């Protein structure tokens, strides 16, 4: 099943059983957050350890995108766009 997400205000489509991290990577988003020194960061561990993939989902910040399954209508804001 194809679902629709909003990522940084842009609509994207993805399969309904993927993680939010995979959905973002597949949509060409390479930087999930930016460090204080301006470096881009993206998922490292893929299993909830490193917190490098943290994003805001439906208004709740600090969510680990690799642990959350994408659901239709989710509104996702990457950390560097906040």
């Amino acid at each position, binding site marked *: 099943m194809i679902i629709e997400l909003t990522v940084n205000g842009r609509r994207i489509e*993805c399969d309904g059983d*993927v*993680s939010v991290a*995979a959905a973002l990577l*597949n949509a060409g988003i390479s930087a999930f957050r930016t460090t204080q*020194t301006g470096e881009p960061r993206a*998922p490292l561990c*893929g299993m909830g350890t490193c*917190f490098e993939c943290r994003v805001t989902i439906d208004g709740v910040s600090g969510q680990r995108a690799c*642990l959350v399954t994408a659901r239709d209508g989710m509104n996702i804001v990457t950390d560097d766009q906040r």
Partner: protein
Amino acid sequence: MISADIVVIGAGPAGLAAAATAAQSGSSVLLVDERSAPGGQIWRGTASRAAASWLARIEAQRVRTSFETAIVDVDAPHGMYGMRGTHPLRIEAGRAVVLATGARELFLPFPGWTLPNVVGVGGAQALLKSGWNVRGRKAVVAGTGPLLLPVAAALARAGARVEAVIEQAPRHAVARFAANLWRTPRRLGEALRYRLSFARTPYITGSWVVHARGDGVVREAVVTDGASERVIGCDILCTAYGLVPAVELPLLFGCALDRERVVVDELQRTSVDGVFCAGEVAGIAGKDAAIVEGTIAGLAATGRITEAKRLVRARSAYADMAARMNEAFALRPELKQVAGDDTVVCRCEDVSLGMIVGCSALREARVLARVGMGPCQGRVCGPALRQIFGWEREGVRPPLLPVTIEALATFGDTATEQT
């Protein structure tokens, strides 16, 4: 509040076996996992027959489950506080707790490892299983141990071009390990099948990544064999150096550790009464060992000691394999020298090696430079700094994961608990 006779934390092979086995005796069992589905890292998204049969048993035995639930604090003797999404939750075990929290990858920092698309080896597999599309991408898989093969195979199957598999262990050690695989024909078959699926890719032993370069994402990996360097172009660099047990929750319960593993006896009992540990958290030995340990824990936690003792010999058979693996894939000392002064070691707090190189212990590095104080709570940099400097871990403090003040305020206050 949710309560059950037996609470199992972690729904990988060890946790599933513990929960299904404990439920057989008629005890009420609650199985908790951080992810949205059972199976742990190894069985996530697979159609493995073993996984399916344990999941069927969980269902048949009416094991209750709480997924997307992370434990963040404990409360004597067998109570816990968790978060299910944004909702705080109290969990109580009437009789025993089985901790099957598994393991995570060991990352050793090198210049460029913070670039996007530099991921773990298991990390790449986890992301693939959760839907990452790598078709047409060039990938390098580097690190150590048997895990490199299935991950390279999975990348190839998903349409990536695997440019090279880089193993840090020397050729003779890998050859000796491979020669011993005849003792476990199933594993030998697996290894051959994986290797054939990326047959045109070089498998390079005695080499390791010293640098990743890119422009916003990784573009090339610099690999050395200690004498000369070669540059391999890639869009994805998967690298990690084996697994370390995830011991934070057992530590919070007060369980004793030995060399970063939870100490257990032959019945998987920890040093704390009523707290059992099973699977990788008690020592990295693979999923088959984890299933036996989980079964022993499930039996012992429900008082079926005689049955549990019958499995002890089966458990010790796996210890040989684990020992051979540790010996063959022991980390070479050069890996400690790969990070330079400018290399970030604590990714959360942006601390480079040069900022802490004069420190004598993790505590000093934390006080001086905030090492380990970010959201991952030292889970990535702690094991790395242990390898590089030999620094022992500090204790562990709740909450184990970042939680809101609002949620934290409800902990210990039964009037506002939510279920």
